[in-house]
């Protein structure tokens, strides 16, 4: 394909553009350029602050908190993105220099090195997302094991309380903002354009920029451990006014969320435009695979909700750095305002973190049961139902917060009702299984494990919706159990399921099925032993986010801690399987699961531009068992006949 690009470039040149000047190694997009542009932009930010302070006559002129905030968290990251090359094309265009509309110079991976560069191929970006987020998953899990070590016994052993609070906060923040949400963006990045029959995402360069903002966010979260006073320590919820009074590490959270949020919003816009405008001929909305439906609704949630958390974090930070009083009661601020704005994002965020998983599970259960998905239209409509209800339930996080009493009953009812569309999905998966021809490969094991654990998470959600129970259980370990049944038993299981399912397509090689099953069973058992007892200690009286607790909970906490280390160890099996299988696993067929959706009808891994010719969609995506049924017809070289 490289030669095609060259020919293409040549073609453009003949139309009269001057040949682009070959640039020196420090001027080419990449790490070497980032190495000097990033510090340069830090200095620019720094001297903006210094100059303003000097002009205003403020003392000290070199105030390092403001310098780190402006230069370290705003201008230096922009410098990094500039240096690495995410803005090159747009800046050339702005400057009136020659650009090629079809410039594929940074498209596709031809060697492993291409995965470390700015790339516009949705398949490369998808894998970049998955590898990067897996790194933060491991770091976040490591932080969790550190504080589980502290919690194994009552009393204080390893950390002081501020460090403990910092570990808890950073664990949740890494897992939510730079693992679960972007890992789904990674899987969808890889799968959605292929499933739609599209050659790429609608905005490939924006797609690359979205990805590269992610390491910036993760680095800021981790860098907070170096700040004086330690990492941000107010939980991932970062409630005001505590968050405005904490040591400087708090600002790393406020700003990290901005970068992660910007990445998330840009990706969601990209998905929306791609899904609306780039479906192959014949791909009506009612023929889209449920994974596409799931990412469509998720993207709507992201686009509508994420700006709220961005706003809430800016306001908290302004209370601190600019002495505003959005949430400071002494000067007329409204403390509960923070929680309303925060949860207006963060409750929909729970669905942002689980709807894509629903999509993955629908694909897998249908394929490995060899049956059409049961009630396809109701499955799609229940996603829309969750989308709408998701915006009317936020204050169920605030039943004990001191908000207006009358808000509690309506919020309880809407929260209870959201169990209905969720229930529809679960029952439809079960009906899909029934009378199927079930193959228990690793993706299917994770899918079934997901259904059983997610049901527990959903049902404990019903308890928490019931206001009197919530009043007792709020801010206890019951909440910790609930959120982990939803986000680990829910989201993480689906991420594993999705990675195993598409691994042959992504890499062109098969993973080791035996290790996959070992990974599933060790994860499933250790997960339940870790998190199920938390329901009990919570209801019995152990609050969350405490470094020390009553001695009566010592035995169960020891069990929980030991199980959590086993859970951590199970990830090693996964990593080993992925790395060795990618390097030297058996070559994968183009369609090892005999699936009908379009991504399986092209070679493994797919060609750089996905399809030689755009496919024609002729039927539904899950017509298993229907004689002669086809989802799509593909023509051309590497393409295969759909399985009948």
């Amino acid at each position, binding site marked *: 394909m490289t030669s095609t690009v060259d020919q293409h470039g040549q073609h453009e040149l003949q139309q009269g553009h001057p040949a682009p000047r070959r640039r020196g190694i420090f001027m080419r997009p990449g790490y070497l350029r980032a190495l000097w542009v990033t510090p340069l932009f830090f200095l620019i930010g720094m001297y903006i602050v210094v100059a303003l302070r000097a002009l205003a006559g403020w003392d000290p002129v070199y105030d390092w908190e403001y310098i780190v905030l402006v230069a370290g968290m705003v201008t230096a990251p922009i410098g990094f993105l500039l240096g690495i090359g995410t803005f090159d094309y747009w800046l050339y265009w702005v400057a009136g220099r020659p650009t090629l509309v079809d410039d594929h110079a940074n498209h596709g991976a031809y060697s492993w090195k291409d995965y470390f560069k700015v790339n516009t191929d949705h398949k490369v970006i998808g894998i970049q997302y998955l590898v990067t987020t897996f790194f933060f998953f491991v770091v976040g899990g490591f932080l969790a094991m550190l504080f589980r070590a502290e919690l194994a016994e009552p009393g204080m052993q390893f950390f002081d309380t501020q460090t403990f609070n910092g570990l808890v906060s950073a664990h949740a923040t890494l897992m939510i903002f730079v693992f679960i949400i972007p890992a789904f963006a990674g899987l969808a990045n890889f799968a959605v354009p292929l499933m739609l029959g599209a050659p790429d995402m609608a905005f490939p360069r924006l797609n690359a920029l979205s990805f590269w903002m992610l390491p910036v966010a993760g680095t800021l979260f981790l860098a907070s451990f170096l700040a004086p006073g330690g990492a941000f320590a107010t939980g991932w919820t970062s409630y005001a006014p505590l968050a405005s009074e904490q040591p400087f590490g708090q600002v790393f959270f406020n700003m990290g969320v901005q970068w992660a949020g910007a990445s998330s919003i840009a990706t969601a816009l990209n998905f929306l435009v791609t899904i609306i405008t780039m479906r192959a001929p014949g791909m009506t909305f009612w023929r889209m695979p449920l994974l596409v439906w799931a990412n469509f609704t998720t993207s709507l949630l992201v686009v509508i909700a994420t700006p709220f958390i961005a706003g809430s974090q800016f306001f908290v930070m302004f209370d601190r750095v600019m002495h505003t009083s959005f949430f400071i009661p002494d000067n007329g601020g409204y403390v509960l305002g923070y929680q309303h704005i925060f949860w207006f994002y963060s409750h929909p965020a729970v669905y942002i973190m689980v709807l894509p998983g629903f999509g993955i599970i629908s694909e897998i259960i249908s394929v490995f049961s060899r049956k*059409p998905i049961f009630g396809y239209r109701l499955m799609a409509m229940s996603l829309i139902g969750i989308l709408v209800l998701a915006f009317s339930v936020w204050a169920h996080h605030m039943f004990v917060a001191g908000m207006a009493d009358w808000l509690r009953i309506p919020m309880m009812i809407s929260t209870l009702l959201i169990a209905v569309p969720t229930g529809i999905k679960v029952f439809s998966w079960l009906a899909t299984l*029934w009378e199927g021809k*079930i193959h228990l490969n690793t993706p299917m094991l994770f899918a079934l494990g997901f259904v059983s654990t997610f049901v527990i998470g959903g*049902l404990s959600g019903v308890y928490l919706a*019931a206001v009197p129970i919530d*009043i007792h259980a709020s*801010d206890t370990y019951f909440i910790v159990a609930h959120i982990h049944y939803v986000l680990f038993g829910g989201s993480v299981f689906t991420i594993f399921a999705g990675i195993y399912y598409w691994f042959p397509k992504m890499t062109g090689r098969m993973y080791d099925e035996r290790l996959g099953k070992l990974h599933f069973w060790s994860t499933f058992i250790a997960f339940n032993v870790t998190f199920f007892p938390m329901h009990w200690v919570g209801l019995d009286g152990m609050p969350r986010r405490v470094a020390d607790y*009553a001695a009566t909970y010592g035995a169960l906490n020891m069990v929980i801690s030991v199980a959590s280390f086993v859970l951590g160890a199970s990830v090693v099996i996964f990593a080993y399987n992925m790395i060795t299988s990618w390097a030297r696993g058996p070559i994968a067929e183009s369609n090892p699961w005999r699936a009908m959706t379009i991504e399986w009808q092209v070679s493994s891994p797919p060609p750089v531009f996905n399809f030689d010719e755009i496919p024609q969609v002729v039927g539904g995506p899950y017509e298993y068992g229907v004689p002669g049924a086809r989802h799509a017809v593909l023509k051309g070289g590497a393409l295969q006949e759909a399985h009948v």
Partner: protein
Amino acid sequence: MIAVVAAVIASLVAVLIRWLPESASEEMDRITFVFWFATIICIGIFALVAAVIIEAVWAFRVQPDDDTDGPPIHGNTKLEIAWTVVPAILVIAIGVVSAVVLSKNANAGSDPLEVKVFAQQFAWKFEYPGKVQSEELVMPLHRSVEFEMQSADVIHSLWIPQMGQKQDVVPGITTKIVITPTRTGDFTLICTELCGLGHATMRAPVRVLEPAAFRHWLDEQRAAGAGAGAGGAGGGQSSGGSSAAGDAALGKTTFASAGCGGCHTFKPAGTDAQVGPDLDNLVADAKKAGEPEARYIEQSIVDPGAVIVTGYQPGVMPTTFGKTLSPAELSGLVAFLSGKEAN
């Protein structure tokens, strides 16, 4: 069949576990009722789901080389309506029961005891009618206590696990909660909203007494409070050597009520926390800062960022003590901390 057995066993285990602590309030009795009402519904649903998964895997699993497909069933409208409507009815039932219990639990009845709660990093203070203040929460048996709660700094949350009720204490607004104790005994009140580094230690003792014993305790407190109040006022005005001891006595109670021991080691107060600097080293620290001891102590309470002891971080200690402590309490604390014995 095997699936049904598994489901029944799972349900039995879930029903037999004592999930909630033994109730000690009328409100917790009602919460316990809602809990079991929801549990029976939820266990039923979980057992159904688990049984179907196990049975499906058991009955419909095929060999890896089986290339056949299942029957092309696309749906069943009646079934789909059923599993939309039935769960909707069940959750609405939970909602109705919850709403009734919620309104009962918020009702303090005709003759509640009103107790004001003041929360600050990292201590609780309770005020009874007649301005009687206490660091211990004492409640009469079978009488509703209505709490009116205020916070001096950040959000805290009041919870006594056996009594179920929980309510955040929010700066800038007053929040309310009702608890009606149903058995005597000792309990612990804990803060459940992350409020900073002393959060895990922000607790207060709770005692529930027979009504007569409670009245006796209240009278006792009232008498003691009047004495201490007069002594404190007197100590604040005079400047003789004898008042220093009275100051230090007030300082000792203030040290406990303001929660200093949650973060600081101070041998005379018997505390050993290690979050903030060890206050037994105050003489040396003051010398290092080059200030007279009394001034150094007062400044460090009112404006903790002024001098930071080596090895500790700024921005950790609450900055609100200058506002929340009375001048008498402040001078008492300074006297107590500078080593003047309380008598």
